Structure formats: C-alpha cells, structure tokens
C-alpha cells in the first residue's frame, strides 16, 4: 500500500509492505525504513511494536481527517490516494486576497463587531465567540473589506463554519 499523508503541514509518502501477512510490516517513509509488528485489539486501537518498544496508538476519524493519539501527544493526518490530488494540496492554494474567517471551535456567537462593507485592519477583532463560558475574540487575518457576514449574535456555530468573508485590498 502506498499513500500520501499530510500531517502538520508536511506531506509524506508512506509505503507499507505486509510481506506474507504473517510477520511484521515493512514501512518506508522517505529514506526511513521500519519493521513494525501491528496488532489491533479493538477497532481504532493500534498496538505497535518497533525494536521491542511498545507504542499504543488510538486513531479516530473526524471531518475526513484522522486524529492520532500517541500517549499525551496527538496529531491530525489527512490522506490522499496517490492517483488523485490531495485535499491538502487544494487547501494550500488559498484564493489570493479572499479570506474566509471560520469558527476555531463550536460555540455561540456573542456579538458580530463589523458590518458588511466595513474596512478592517489586520488583527482587528471582528466577532466574539463564546464556548465553555469563555469569550474569545476572532480577529481578521488580513487588511481588507468585509464582503459577507454569515452569522449573527446568538447563533450556535460548529468548528470550521464560515463566519465572515474578508477581501484583501
């Protein structure tokens, strides 16, 4: 199996050769090669043995990404089949000057601080979001004009939901 994976902004090609299916799998990532014994006690839980060292890895799927938990460390991995261009690559090409401001977490909109057509500075607060009793200011990443306001005070929003669209000058 050969896959392209993106994690923390870097894309890797991983090759997994399970050999005759009886022994450890051979894993190749760039110039690194590992022999890893893989067992799955329950779905989503991977017990990996590498050179006698034990690694217990939990993997769950969320919004098309794999959330990988290895001890207290976690990371997010996106997969693309080699035949198709990966969503990671597509996401990297941001329409120049047009920026969607999304909710960094699910919560409730307390106040929208700007109106459609308003000019905003980079770093200016545009919206206040409340989650878990804490208020967070959402800021504009660019200088520009507010093109769209897609939310209003009191609205419950989900992580990743587009709140505002700002177009750069």
């Amino acid at each position, binding site marked *: 199996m050969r896959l392209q994976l993106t994690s923390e902004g870097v894309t890797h090609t991983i090759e997994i050769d399970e050999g005759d299916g009886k022994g450890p799998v051979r894993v190749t990532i760039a110039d690194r090669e590992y022999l890893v014994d893989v067992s799955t006690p329950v779905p989503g839980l991977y017990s990996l043995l590498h050179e006698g060292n034990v690694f217990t890895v939990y*993997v769950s799927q969320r919004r098309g990404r794999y959330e990988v938990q290895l001890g207290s460390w976690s990371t997010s991995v996106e997969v693309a089949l080699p035949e198709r261009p990966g969503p990671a690559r597509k996401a990297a090409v941001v329409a120049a000057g047009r920026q969607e401001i999304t909710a960094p977490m699910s919560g409730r909109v307390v106040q929208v601080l700007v109106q459609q057509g308003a000019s905003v500075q980079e770093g200016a607060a545009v919206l206040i979001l409340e989650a878990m009793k804490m208020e967070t200011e959402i800021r504009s990443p660019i200088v520009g004009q507010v093109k769209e306001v897609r939310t209003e005070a009191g609205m419950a929003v989900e992580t990743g939901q587009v709140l505002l669209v700002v177009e750069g000058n």
Partner: protein
Amino acid sequence: MFGKVLIANRGEIAIRVMRACRELGILAVAVYSQADRNALHVQMADEAYLIGPPPATESYLVIDRIIDTALACGADAIHPGYGFLAENAGFARACEEHDITFIGPSSRAIALMGDKTAARRAMQGGGVPVVPGMDHFLEDDAEALRISSEMGYPIMVKSALGGGGRGMRLVQQERELSEALRAARSEARSAFGDPAIYLEKFVQNPRHVEVQVLADAHGHVIHLGERECSIQRRHQKVVEESPSPIMTEELRARMGDAAVRAAQAANYRNAGTVEFLLDDERNFYFLEMNTRLQVEHPVTEMVTGIDLVQAQLHVAAGEPLRFRQEDIVLRGAAIECRIYAEDPAHGFRPSPGRIMALQSPAGPWVRDERGVFAGGEVSPYYDPMISKLVVWGATRPDAIARMRRALDEYIISGIKTTIPFHRWLMDDADFLAGRLDTSFIERRFPRQSPPRETLLQDLALLAAALEHARTTPQPSRAAPADGDGRGVSPWKLAGRMDVMRRRG
C-alpha cells in the same frame, strides 16, 4: 442524616457528591439540561429530572425550577457543588424558605462573603491584611477610569460574585480598560447572573495559597492546612498541591489562624476556603473566602484522610465536627491536575467535541474524577473541566513521579486536553524546585511545542494509514490482486489486516 439529596450541578463534581452520598447510604438525585440527557452524572444518579434547555441561565441557574424539583421528588437537602448556584445567597435563602437543607453555609454568610467588597471590609475589621482596592461595586466606566488612574496600573477587574476566574480581567494599560470591563461584566452575567464588578490593585507575581476550613453549627471551626494553587491560566487554577512547597509550620499556624478567624467572623458553617496572596517575603493578604467546596478539595483529602464532602453532609445534618484541630495531621504530598477540554498548544482555547477513546489511569494512590466517557460529547455550553486527576506520594518528588506515570497512562482522543501541558509541567525545572507564582504559565510554558521525534511522527502516519485502509469501503473484495500491474491495492491490504487481526 438525610435520606435523599438533590445535586444541583453536573459533570465530575455532581458525581463526586453522589459518591459521598452513596457511601453514607443517601439516595442521589441528578438534575440535567436538554444537552445533558446522556451525561455521566445522569447515568450514575438514582433519580434524574430535566430542568430546562441547554444554556445554564435557563437550566442549572434557575432557582425556582431546582427548588420545585427538590420538593416534587422529596429531597431533604440540596448540594450545590461548585460554580452555578453554589455561592448564590438567593438560592440558599430559597432553600431555607422551603425547609430544604442547603448543604453549605447560611444565606447570610454567603451574602457577606459573596459580596467581595463587604468581605474585604469585614476582614480589615478583623485585622487580616487585604489587597488594596475598592470597597464598593463599580458604578460606571468613568468611575473605573478615575479609580484605575488613582491606584495606578496594572489593575484587576473582578466580578462581585466572583470565583473560578470568571469575570476577571487583568488591565495593564488604560486603553485596555473599557474592553476588559465589557468582557468581565458579560462573563459575570452569564456565569453568576449578576454583572456587578469592582477593581483591585494587581499584586505582581504572587503565590496563591489558600486554607481549607471546616465549621459546624455548634461554633467549632478548624483548618485542614493549605493548598498551593499558583499555577493558573486566565486567573483560573490548573494545578494544585498540598502542602505548599514553601510552607513552614510557623506560617501554616499563622495563616490557619487567620482563616479560622475569617470563618468565625462570618458565623460560618460548612467546608470553606480562605484564599490568600503570598508575596516573596511570605506576607499574606486576604483575597476572598469561597463559601463552598473547591475543585481542588481532593488534595486536602489525600493528605488529611478526611472526606470533605462527607464532612459537609454531616455538618449540614447538624452533627458536630468529628475532629479537633490537634487531630489534623498532614501526611505526604498530593497533587491535582485539572484536565480541561482545551488546547494548550493554542493558548488553552476551548476544544469541545466527541470523545473517541478514553483510558483512565489507575494503580496505587491515583484518583481520576471524571465527568465524561468514551463516545460522550463534551458540550460547548458548560465548563471545560472534564476531570481532576489526583495523586498522593510520601514526598513531593514521589507525588510528581506518580503524576507523570498517571498522565502517561491517561488517553483521551477526539478532543484536545491539557494532559500534554501537565506532562510538560511535571518535568519543568521551576515546578520541580517549587518556584511557583501566578504568572508561571506565561513565564515558563513554551508557545511552540518541541519538534516530535521522527519515529513517533512516522508511527502516527502508519497508524493513520492502517485506519484508512480498515475504514475505507472496498469497491470489490474479489478484485484480482496485482494482476494488472498496479501494485498492491490498499483494499487488499485492508483485507489482509483483517486476517491478521483475527489471527492475533
């Protein structure tokens, strides 16, 4: 003793109180909002009643609905937990009026200590030193501007009803003032139902050390030593320990004495906490008294062997205290790590969502008090604390080593938690040396996490690839393998992994 107690709270603290009730043979009644039908505290209760829609202001903070529920189900007493209505004098009064025992102090004592400015006046009268600040609530922004420039920045904006860092804002310069006042009022309104705020001079880099007291209805007041709570983010505690690493017997006696006097001044009954700021020269200043159980109560339980929730129940039922001051001995060291659904790598921002996998630490002297379960949802409506992890050791270094071990065992996936922060902390040189102050996190915690070992990163990629192969639907299991020269297909590998699993 009571026959049935209603717990006017949710999450891990509701469960903590239920456990004490069970051990005393008392039936435990849960209340829940529409968002909490599946919550763990409902699953663990003997009885459970719906009290309203998800926002706390329409459910957990609605006094009438909780009183009506208690009357309807025949509860003799209400335990408020912490947060929500725990320090609401109106709620305690409503209980008194309906002949339901409020497991806490009298409404008068709550009102005195709850009005932070009145409490400051009372303490000054009793000769306990206080932090400079206002002795009344703020009228408007103009008054704030005037008082702040008189006192000099930095100043602290605080909620009148206070507690848990809610409605608190540090203001370094005048231009930050109006936004801080707005945010503090707004948070205070949603957390306590009252937007009143006041101002205090900000003491630079103090330690936050508090004393646990226990008082019965017969005039006995004792203290159970101190807790060091200096490690905070957003003025809310993250890690607590007992004893404080800098405590001496002499200082403990003086602070304990001041705490007991504070409780006596309020004619206090119940478990309570007197909070102090401690400066470099070990001068202490009264900060406030919390007229309720504290989140960090387990560290005191671990070093004293006293169950504080059971003690609350005994005292509320009118029994005299079972211990005298000379019976209280602090043994060993205990540490609590608050596990929040927050991302420490991104400024501790909230991370609500569904918990996918969960494995709780266990073993000797490890106590995990959790309000969530695998597959359960961490709601954006409520407090982000999902668990308190508490350990005990014969010495502070033993307790730290045990906490390190317990954190390594603790798995919560699907949401971000503060576990990686705690794991970092347990290796930090200043923490190990006990060099703590309330700016510790800002001062020490690196904003960038260190680069991961390549091996770990690669194994994470391997696990993600295997999970992808396992969960991606196969167009045809019977497709010929490798025959057309396309190489090994991921579908085929998934099939083989199934075989390996069955074999394993």
